[in-house]
């Protein structure tokens, strides 16, 4: 049964059948082959119940917030202000790239949006100040991935829905690892530029008073962060409610910067629904497939088989990391999560891993997937911002940052408190 299922799934995926359709068709075929009951009939019921869940409403809301912020033009001023503060470091503006990404990540739940927004503002500076192209591009592609680790995070909501984990706990757990990863990225830049000073470009000089004045421009992103993440921890709002407040704040901000208009709003809504429709169809199909799989006993068989491999707790963890690193090279990240987490997470839970901690590990692996070729969406986003040049520059430039992510995973394994301390203290 397992072999047939796997062969079918791989076959469908290899034929480039859309992920949603592949899962749905697989569910139908499995129901036909192995079920004595008319399982197919519940497809309608599942489609309805899986798509009106209140927690899932946060998904389109965070996507919409990202679309609004992307179009509100707040990134430029923020980047300038951060550049004034950070460009004295070895590696200059590359540090502001990472800091701007981290800061934008605190308002946006998407890594692609973060890379696109900050990249648009930052990239024109690379040539102007003579930076090493590859490293500069790498900071943008990798920095952008912080979008899903530093709360809010779209991927964490998907993980929470799939594993019944608390979103507020996941958000808290992501803060320290997110900031730490940003610092590690800056460390990578500093080390590289200490080794090869010519990579670091020319310094931008700034006076102290200009630095202080620039701080005003950090206000808007900070305000959004407080509204969205602050309201959750003040006990004021659930994640979906916080996302709603965030959308309202995003609208207000876009109105304030003068970006808001009917056309802009229409584009933002259309962009939101494009992602939402794509994800929701996959979610509906995944719920259906999971239902079929558990009703024919395949889920139990699968988890039993994995457990009977006789791997120890940490061997299994290592296997999961390798699995996601490889899969992440070929698969779009949300589809990857929705297809694999329902199988992998229960196994890891049975082995005694904390689900919040494992969530953070998964998110870091997803970040790696976003900047590993051939299918790393962030690589392509950054490449697209350049007028010319080879894709290889971005791939090579992002590589050292993948190593930083692996180091973070190691640190998380040795010091689980990095992720778990904050949720424990706050609850």
């Amino acid at each position: 049964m397992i072999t047939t299922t796997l062969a079918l799934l791989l076959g469908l995926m290899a034929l480039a059948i859309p992920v949603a359709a592949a899962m749905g068709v697989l569910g139908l075929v499995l129901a036909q082959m192995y079920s004595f009951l008319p399982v197919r009939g519940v497809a309608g019921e599942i489609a309805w119940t899986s798509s009106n869940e209140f927690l899932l409403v946060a998904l389109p809301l965070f996507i919409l917030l990202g679309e609004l912020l992307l179009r509100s033009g707040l990134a430029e001023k923020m980047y300038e202000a951060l550049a004034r503060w950070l460009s004295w470091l070895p590696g200059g503006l590359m540090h502001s790239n990472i800091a701007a990404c981290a800061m934008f990540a605190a308002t946006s739940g998407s890594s692609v949006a973060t890379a696109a927004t900050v990249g648009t503002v930052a990239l024109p500076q690379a040539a102007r100040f003579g930076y090493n192209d590859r490293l500069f591009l790498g900071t943008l592609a990798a920095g952008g991935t912080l979008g899903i680790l530093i709360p809010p995070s779209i991927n964490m909501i998907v993980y929470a829905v799939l594993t019944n984990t608390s979103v507020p706990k996941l958000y808290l757990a992501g803060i320290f690892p997110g900031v730490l990863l940003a610092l590690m990225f800056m460390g990578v830049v500093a080390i590289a530029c200490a080794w090869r000073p010519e990579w670091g470009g020319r310094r931008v000089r700034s006076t102290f008073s200009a630095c202080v004045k620039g701080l005003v421009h950090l206000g808007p992103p900070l305000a959004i962060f407080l509204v969205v993440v602050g309201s959750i921890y003040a006990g004021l709002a659930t994640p979906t409610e916080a996302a709603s407040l965030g959308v309202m704040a995003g609208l207000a901000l876009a109105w304030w910067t003068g970006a808001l208009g009917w056309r802009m709003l229409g584009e933002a809504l259309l962009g939101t629904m494009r992602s939402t429709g794509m994800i929701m169809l996959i979610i509906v199909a995944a719920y259906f497939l999971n239902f079929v799989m558990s009703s024919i006993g395949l889920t139990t068989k699968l988890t039993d088989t994995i457990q009977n491999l006789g791997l120890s707790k940490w061997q299994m963890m290592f296997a999961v990391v390798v699995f996601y690193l490889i899969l992440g090279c070929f698969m779009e990240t949300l589809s990857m999560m929705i297809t694999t987490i329902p199988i992998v997470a229960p196994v890891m839970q049975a082995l005694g891993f904390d689900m919040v901690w494992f969530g953070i590990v998964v998110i870091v692996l997803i970040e790696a997937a976003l900047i590993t070729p051939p299918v790393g969406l962030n690589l392509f986003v950054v490449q697209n911002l350049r007028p010319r040049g080879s894709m290889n520059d971005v791939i090579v430039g992002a590589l050292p940052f993948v190593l930083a992510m692996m180091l973070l995973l190691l640190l998380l394994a040795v010091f689980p408190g990095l992720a778990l301390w904050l949720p424990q203290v706050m609850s």
Partner: protein
Amino acid sequence: MRDALDAALGAARRGSTAAAIAGGGLILAAAGLVSVDVLLRKFARVTLGGADELSGYALAIGATWSFAYVLLNRGNVRIDALYQHLPKALAAVCDVLAVLALLGFVSVVTWYGFGVLSESWRIGARSNSALAVPLFVPQALWWLGYAWFVVCAVLQLVRALLPFASGDWTGVNRLIGARSIVEEAAEEVASALHASGAKAPR
């Protein structure tokens, strides 16, 4: 034949775009309603009640209303690791299979989805909450999105079979081919550039 199909597909595109924007409007309205609810609860100690339920319906309806738009704009994620190396003729076969598979699965959901809706109508089901919403109302709107998807998918499939039959693989690709990751990224960048007022690099 071709002209009539093109006209129909054009109308389907416009309809689907409008439906997706309307769906987005529902999501935006839900955000507004939920925000008002939170603020009232905090500062006036009043609760509207049912904001969570209504926004759930907004998601269900908004999502299905955007399915056709995603389909017609080739927005469904496909894994193209192998596909992009296939000869054009084989890739075109995959493209047709892709629409068929989507159509097959969604048709089943649409078929049984109608059962959900008609059952709610028959027994007069109401939501288990203070609002006691007659469930067939949101379910009917939700189901319409699926039905519209099926109509659009059939149109798109038939239209794509024309170039397919005459061996015009490029034509097939333009209609139902997988969007490459390069196109995907270009779109993301275009909206960011648009915001910053800069010009696209190429």
